[in-house]
């Protein structure tokens, strides 16, 4: 058996691949549900119901999708340029804690229309600062950024834990380590009344559109893609590798930081070390499922959020551990890898 590279990739294949991948992942997860002794189709019906069955659950799913869109974009822009930023989780926490630091007292005198955008910028900058460490190590010492950015996740969470145990600790939280709460007018307005869905969701979609435009229509987008496809060819064509990577990294880290900022400003209002149930890592899957396409990221994030939110309800009624959502999402990453492979190669005997 041999694999032969396809001359061109038909469009129908590129659109069909993610769907087939998700169906395959759901089928595999179905086996696990069956082993656990629950009816498979009923389980999936409950997941859908749990995620979209009511106004409350639907808004909850979109609320959950919001940070996933942004961390998914963070991974997608970086992976496009073959910058392996696996540190979105840490950058998320950096963005979140920066917003808590500036938004609770220091800048609370500012009016909302100035304060809210300013805090978002601060969150994004905090994410950029964290990604500069692995970037610097790569450019200066040629250290593979995968491990450094991953390990920084652990450092970032410990750093946040230190701050919310110390200088940023909320004295009214009965001794719980949590940060001081944001000023009320620093919170994002609701998108739909009587729900948790906030305008961060709309902002995330607009940003996805902007990133799509930047990637497909600007010189920077072309340079970052060229850097990923063929670094030496890109250099030959006059792309400055170092500065392109710096820009890509800042964009990626900034998006992840913004995800943290928006999560704090939109949902919780304060920071704890369980603010993120792995948004940074799930962002990697979201980006892969979208085949690194910024608009696809929105759909992939909603799919992922559906699994996570829906699994809660399913778990309560059928007694399947909620971790089935994580398993399904991880499986869909693996099946997507295989599906993408077969859009590029055909089997020859």
């Amino acid at each position, binding site marked *: 058996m041999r694999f032969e590279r396809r001359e061109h990739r038909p469009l129908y294949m590129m659109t069909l691949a993610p769907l087939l991948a998700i169906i395959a992942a759901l089928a595999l997860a179905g086996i696990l549900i069956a082993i656990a002794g629950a009816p498979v189709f009923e389980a999936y019906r409950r997941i859908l119901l749990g995620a979209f069955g009511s106004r409350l659950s639907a808004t909850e799913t979109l609320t959950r999708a919001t940070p996933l869109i942004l961390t998914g974009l963070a991974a997608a822009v970086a992976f496009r340029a073959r910058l392996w930023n696996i540190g979105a989780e840490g950058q998320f926490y950096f963005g979140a804690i920066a917003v808590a630091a500036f938004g609770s007292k220091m800048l609370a005198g500012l009016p909302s229309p100035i304060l809210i955008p300013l805090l978002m910028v601060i969150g994004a900058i905090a994410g950029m600062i964290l990604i500069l460490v692995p970037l610097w190590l790569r450019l200066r010492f040629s250290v593979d950024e995968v*491990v450094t950015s991953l*390990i920084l996740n652990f450092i970032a969470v410990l750093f946040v834990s230190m701050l919310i145990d110390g200088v940023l600790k909320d004295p009214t939280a009965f001794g719980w380590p949590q940060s001081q709460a944001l000023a009320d007018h620093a919170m994002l307005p609701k998108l739909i009344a009587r729900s948790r869905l906030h305008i961060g969701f709309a902002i995330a979609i607009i940003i996805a559109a902007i990133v799509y435009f930047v990637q497909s229509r600007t010189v920077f987008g072309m340079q970052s893609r060229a850097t990923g496809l063929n670094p030496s060819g890109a250099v030959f064509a006059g792309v400055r590798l170092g500065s392109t990577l710096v820009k890509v990294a800042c964009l990626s880290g900034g998006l992840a930081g913004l995800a943290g900022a928006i999560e704090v400003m939109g949902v919780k209002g304060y920071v704890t070390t369980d603010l993120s149930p792995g948004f940074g890592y799930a962002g990697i899957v979201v980006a892969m499922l979208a085949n690194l396409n910024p608009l696809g990221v929105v759909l992939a994030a909603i799919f992922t959020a559906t699994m996570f939110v829906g699994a809660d309800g399913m778990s309560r009624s059928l007694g399947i551990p909620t971790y089935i959502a994580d398993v399904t999402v991880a499986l869909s*990453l693996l099946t997507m890898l295989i599906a993408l492979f077969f859009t590029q190669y055909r089997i020859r005997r």
Partner: protein
Amino acid sequence: MSTLVDIIASAGLWAAVLRIATPLIFGTLGALLCERAGVLNLGIEGIMTFGAMIGWLSVYHGADLWTGLLIAAIAGAIFGLLHSALTVTLGLSQHVSGLGVTLFASSFSYYVFRLIVPVAGTPPTITPFQPIAIPGLSTLPFIGPALFTQTAPTYFAILIALVMAYLIFRTPVGLAIRMTGENPHAAEAQGLNPMNIRYGAIIAGSALMGMGGAFLTLSAFNSFFPTMVQGRGWICIALVVFSSWRPGRALFGALLFAFFDAFQLRLQTAVQGVPYQIFLMTPYVLSIVALAVMSRRARVPQALMQPYRRGER
């Protein structure tokens, strides 16, 4: 100052160093074997988590401890087979495939664990490996209790490091693995099959990773909890670079690293007024520093992360 001396002079510290080093030795050797054949295995974190879970679960259900360790190794090998299929046969990005394996293996571990052990107040426990006092040596002053009263898997890990050093540098199999990692085309010209060699190295390496995880639940602790691997897998990947892909130095690196880790644990109680998180950060900071310092001098296997396809360059 005297507290520092007290800490270093205590046999307890040195016993802890070996204990903390053991999962790192298994994991680093496993990752090293994969990379020597030219394949980065970022599945390590998830494979260690799964090994910890399945090893514990087997013993909890009545298997003896060595069988638990063996089952963890087999489970690791199966994930290695998955990573091989994706990276060797299909030639997919080793980074992404490894991350996929990690995400899948860890979430699958939590799923299986929760399925069999529903949420309880206190997690159920097993009777772990007991320390073995080596006759004669364990009664030596100071080094006796530190070095010669470990549990069996610790001795086993050190033995594997020595065996692997011999295997890689002194046997034809080791030469074949090294050639595949440096230049698979040249290896094929010598009549070797780079695909099979990569499969073998990844499967065996992943089995070691599974055992490293199982050490955590079967020897260091006696129960399983999610997030118990806590980035040890990533630290192993850093240690491989630190060791310049040499098993002997991997052993040394794991011990050095464990020394700092054991030391900071004791310093936490000795030094007041410093946030404990600063101490907890040190192992992670150290592994980044180790990467920065060593990656310049390191001789990376030349074909690392390059997919190999017959007839395609």
